[in-house]
């Protein structure tokens, strides 16, 4: 049928968790198949090859979802092809939107990362120092290649133009449903923005003291990590001393982590108007620490602040990697 909306999914440097969120729609996904057609879903679900995408006509896909960050030259190559084939391109999930946890790799050199991954882990046995090489000649005649590793992690929008963003690690399936509905009905925000309900995690969190009768916001008098104790499961985590990024993160998840007594770590992406998530986190958390003793307590408890504040967003920051 010509009227069906053609969807494409492409996994770059991610873990395919974002695609699991689509699958989590379960019977709703099956229902939508009346209106949509999956034209490309690689390398995870459909039996298609990269070449099949390259052979498609330009603009053959209506909406393309790309999840995962850019780490290898293969990712750059595939992202550019997908951009040509797609009318609308969505950076789907926090990795392609902000870099994701793998983005923290930009704080280390390639040598450090390779040594850890291929040599120094306790379960690795690599006495000959064998590391992956982009090119290798086997038996003097087979010229084999692997995608080559780039110097730092990049976001999708640093490689191609992106029309919309969806945050989350992974995006909550109910939000995926809302986003798909928005796409089908055409009720979309201005190009270049997040598809989001625009509310902070605190806004949708049951623990928010502002929404409780007779309760009020208070400053932090101590800092705790989640290993230091079990938080009370009804009180705001910030008020108990557990640093939570709820005030500065998009709440499309419906505060899922807070429902299981875990502080928000910011995978939803920054609220509209914020350019640098980590810097905004420093700003917001800094303003609710009661005094300098609490600040030094935080600095002691989290010895690497940049990995804490930029957990999902390091490559999107103004300082995108170690200098």
């Amino acid at each position, binding site marked *: 049928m010509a009227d069906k909306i053609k969807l494409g999914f492409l996994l770059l440097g991610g873990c395919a968790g974002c695609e699991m969120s689509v699958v989590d729609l379960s019977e709703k996904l099956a229902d939508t198949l009346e209106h949509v057609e999956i034209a490309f879903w690689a390398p995870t679900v459909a039996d298609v090859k990269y070449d099949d995408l390259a052979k498609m006509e330009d603009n053959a896909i209506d909406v393309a979802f790309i999840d995962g960050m850019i780490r290898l*030259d*293969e990712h*750059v*190559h595939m992202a*550019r092809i997908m951009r040509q084939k797609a009318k609308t391109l969505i950076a789907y999930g926090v990795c392609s939107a902000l870099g994701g946890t793998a983005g923290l790799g930009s*704080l280390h050199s390639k040598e450090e990362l390779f040594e850890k991954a291929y040599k120094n882990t306790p379960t690795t046995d690599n006495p000959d120092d064998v590391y992956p090489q*982009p090119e290798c000649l086997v038996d003097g005649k087979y010229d084999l*290649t692997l995608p*080559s590793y*780039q*110097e730092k992690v990049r976001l999708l929008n*640093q490689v191609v133009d992106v029309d919309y963003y969806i945050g989350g690690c992974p995006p909550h399936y109910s939000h995926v449903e809302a986003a798909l509905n928005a796409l089908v009905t055409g009720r979309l925000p201005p190009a270049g923005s997040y598809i989001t309900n625009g509310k902070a995690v605190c806004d949708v969190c049951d623990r928010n003291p502002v929404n409780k009768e007779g309760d009020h916001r208070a400053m932090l008098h101590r800092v705790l990590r989640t290993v230091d104790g079990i938080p009370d499961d009804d009180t705001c985590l910030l008020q108990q001393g557990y640093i939570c990024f709820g005030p500065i993160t998009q709440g499309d998840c419906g505060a899922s982590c807070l429902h299981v007594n875990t502080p928000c770590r910011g995978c939803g992406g920054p609220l509209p108007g*914020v*350019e*640098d998530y*980590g*810097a*905004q986190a*420093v*700003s917001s*958390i*800094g*303003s609710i*620490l009661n*005094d*300098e003793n*609490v*600040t030094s307590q*935080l*600095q002691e408890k989290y010895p*690497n*602040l*940049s*990995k804490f*504040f930029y957990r999902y967003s390091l490559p999107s*920051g*103004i*300082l*995108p*990697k*170690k*200098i």
Partner: protein
Amino acid sequence: MKSPNIIGFACQWCTYAGADLAGNLRCKYPPTVKLIKVPCSGRVKPEYVLKAFAQGADGVLVGGCHFGDCHYKDGNYKTKNRMDMLKQMLEEFGFDPRRFRREWISGAEGKKFADVITEFSAELQELGPNDALVDIQPGNEVEEVTRNG
């Protein structure tokens, strides 16, 4: 190296008044600082500091009131919390934290303002220009050569 380029965020009640006084007192200090008047040092987001560095500032100064003097009672306490954490983060990124200063300069301390700028300029002169951060901004960097991209 040419003379350093310093961006100074100055609270209008204290540090900016201090800079004014430095002029009235005919204190001499190098013309390296570009002051931006802000209502309170607590208004300065860490993002502004990073942005200044990214756009080519060799040094950034955030100046506020001494503790207890803040016109808005606790703005400078927030500044201290934020800027101390930011400084630690800059260090973790391998960025020289000496390029970033947080100073409390009151409206009566014209001399201190001149001294801070003189000292900061001399230090930055030694450190040389801040190219590292400018070069890695998207758009400024040379794209890596890709084999099949």
